[in-house]
């Protein structure tokens, strides 16, 4: 898409600025080279003239004259102007009028215009050296800078001619980059719009490894995660729907059958009670869902208080002992010393209670359920272990998932949810809830999950 709007793009303005900068820099470089070249030339010519004058200072007049004649006629590149003047000021030999005012100091002097016009009638700049001879006469040597100035002019012309195409080329390249960038942004933008409209399978385009590609890849990874979470949510939703619909369907069927038949009062009553029990299941499920979200949006660390985890375990022992006894299960709480921790005491009690509930439920008569609390490396931990059926290896990773339906979950409503609530509470306290083999039985452990700084990173639900 090559439209006027391209010129409004940031990228194009950037290219334009870039072109200008390059042009100025190039011009500066050219100017520097030009100055250096011209000065080097003049310096070189000056040095040669001074040198020549010095060398010739001691020569006899006749020798010098011969040499100068030779130089003037054959080696025009070296000497353009020569004057040999006797001590009285008369020109003995040369092509320069004595009226030329050059200090007789054996140093190079620059004249803006030399004395003799060239073939075209122009007077060019030149360099002269005048030196007094041993006999009192003066030797004047000079050289026109015509060639040097020609070279400089050529250079300037070349520079002027070269600069315009350079700027145009840079502008063209800039515009092309701007166009390409705007094309890429447009493709990315279109993709984002389509994704926002619901096409979550779409990903941002990327080709290489530049910054935009890196961002596109990062966004794509984020989209993958969102899609995964949505998928998870959907399957959790399906499980919730199942947990709610099944008892509702059963209740409905029972009520309808009771209405259809010419049932007696006793049968009606039975049907009502059965239906109520199913509705109670629904209610328990809803309560547990609400409970998880309540805990997830529960107290923040600022509301945490210090309490003794060992005391909570002792309380729970007191509470669950009668239940354990009634099922011939031995309940032991082992914490020889206070276990200070910071958190929400009620929630920790709830989390441990869910685990103890399960442990007693799934431990056969004669078994043992053990509640432990302690400190390792300065961090509190709690363990609930039993000698029951245990958790099969392949289920261990999943049982804390919301609405995971394990092999046992059919028997007891809310079982899986209890573990989810416990895991959520653990996360809230910077713990990780894991399950191990207790040989036999299951061993649920609350342990510090990570350094405090990483606590807030929530695991995927």
């Amino acid at each position, binding site marked *: 898409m090559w439209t006027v709007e391209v010129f409004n793009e940031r990228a194009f303005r950037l290219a334009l600025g870039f072109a200008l900068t390059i042009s100025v820099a190039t011009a500066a470089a050219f100017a520097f080279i030009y100055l250096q070249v011209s000065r080097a030339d003049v310096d070189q010519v000056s040095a040669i003239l001074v040198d020549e004058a010095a060398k010739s200072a001691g020569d006899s007049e006749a020798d010098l004259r011969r040499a100068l004649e030779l130089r003037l006629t054959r080696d025009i590149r070296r000497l353009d102007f020569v004057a040999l003047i006797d001590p009285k000021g008369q020109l003995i030999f040369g092509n320069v009028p004595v009226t030329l005012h050059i200090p007789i100091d054996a140093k190079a002097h620059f004249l803006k215009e030399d004395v003799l016009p060239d073939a075209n009638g122009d007077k060019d700049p030149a360099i002269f050296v005048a030196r007094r001879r041993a006999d009192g006469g003066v030797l004047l040597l000079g050289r026109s800078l015509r060639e040097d100035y020609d070279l400089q002019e050529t250079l300037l012309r070349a520079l002027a001619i070269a600069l315009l195409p350079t700027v145009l080329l840079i502008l063209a390249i800039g515009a092309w980059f701007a166009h390409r960038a705007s094309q890429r942004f447009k493709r990315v933008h279109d993709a984002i719009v389509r994704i926002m409209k619901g096409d979550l399978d779409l990903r941002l385009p990327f080709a290489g490894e530049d910054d935009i590609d890196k961002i596109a890849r990062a966004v794509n990874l984020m989209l993958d995660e969102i899609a995964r979470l949505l998928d998870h949510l959907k399957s959790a939703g399906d499980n919730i729907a199942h947990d709610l619909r099944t008892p509702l369907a059963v209740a409905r069927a029972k009520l309808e059958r009771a209405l259809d038949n010419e049932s007696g009062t006793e049968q009606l009553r039975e049907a009502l*009670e059965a239906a*109520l*029990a199913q509705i*109670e299941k629904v*209610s*328990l499920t*809803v*309560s547990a869902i*609400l*409970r998880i*979200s*309540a*805990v997830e*949006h*529960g*107290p923040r660390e600022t509301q945490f208080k210090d309490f003794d985890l060992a005391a909570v375990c002792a*309380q729970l022992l*007191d*509470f*669950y002992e*009668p*239940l354990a006894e*009634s099922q011939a299960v031995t309940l032991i709480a082992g914490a020889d010393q206070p276990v200070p921790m910071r958190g*929400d005491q*009620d*929630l920790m*009690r*709830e989390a441990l*209670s*869910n685990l103890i*509930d399960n442990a*007693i*439920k799934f431990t056969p008569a004669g078994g043992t359920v053990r509640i432990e609390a302690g400190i390792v490396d300065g961090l509190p931990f709690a363990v609930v272990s039993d000698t029951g059926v245990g958790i099969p290896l392949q289920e261990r990773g999943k049982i804390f998932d919301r609405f995971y339906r394990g092999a046992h979950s059919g028997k*007891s409503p*809310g*079982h899986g949810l*209890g573990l989810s609530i416990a895991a959520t509470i653990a996360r809230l306290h910077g713990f990780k809830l894991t399950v191990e083999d207790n040989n036999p039985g299951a061993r649920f452990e609350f342990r510090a999950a990570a350094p405090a700084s990483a606590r807030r990173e929530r695991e995927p639900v």
Partner: protein
Amino acid sequence: MAFGNEAVTVSPFENGGSPTSRPPDGLAGAPVLVVEDERDLAEEIRLELEASGHQVRLSETVDDGLRAARSGAAVLIIDRMLQGQDGLSIIEALRAEGNATPALVISALSSVDDRINGLKAGGDDYLIKPFDIRELTARVEALLRRGDTRLTRLQVGALEMDLVERTVRCDGKPVDLLPREFRLMEYFMRRPGQIVTRAMLLEDVWNFKFMAQTNVVDVQIGNLRRKLDPTGARRFIINIRAVGFKLNVDG
């Protein structure tokens, strides 16, 4: 809560009628005010409370509820979410005026913060939707009959409790109770003839702000029953089917 697996099971209307059919003295005539904008639920609450012998007045908005509460009510039942307004503002306004009418807050908001806010605003109890309507009734009864907590000796029928010496006697003979059993017993002794739900016991006796998933409460009650009467012939604590328990006044 279909936990009713104990042998002793009666309905609320056996044993000489509902224990809640007589409003407490002094509050007779004052209605229970229900501020709830979901009409179906409000109607169910009305039917249930009227069946227990209470007068009920319904209100649907914060403004109307506040007016009704000012003109006198025995207990307030207030939903938090009322057409975009927070029902707690009723309680806050009343408390600011020095009106201490007991208030039960019902809400679908269940986070710990919500509960704390509900109680901070002056609510006396907090019930989360969905709730068992009989749970609501039991809690309204509890609010209506809040007893004198300064008593040190309690007596209900053949049962006597000394809160200083921490002893319990049945027909004059001492009953040896574990500390946890004593706490449970005290809760019943303070609420003779009143329905006590499992959730109330969990919250008030064991400080559990959630529902245990097992019948641990029933087991504890069973133990207490056996201590009070090893023969099992007498019914001190009776089951109220699917609701909870009650200390039998005539036991």
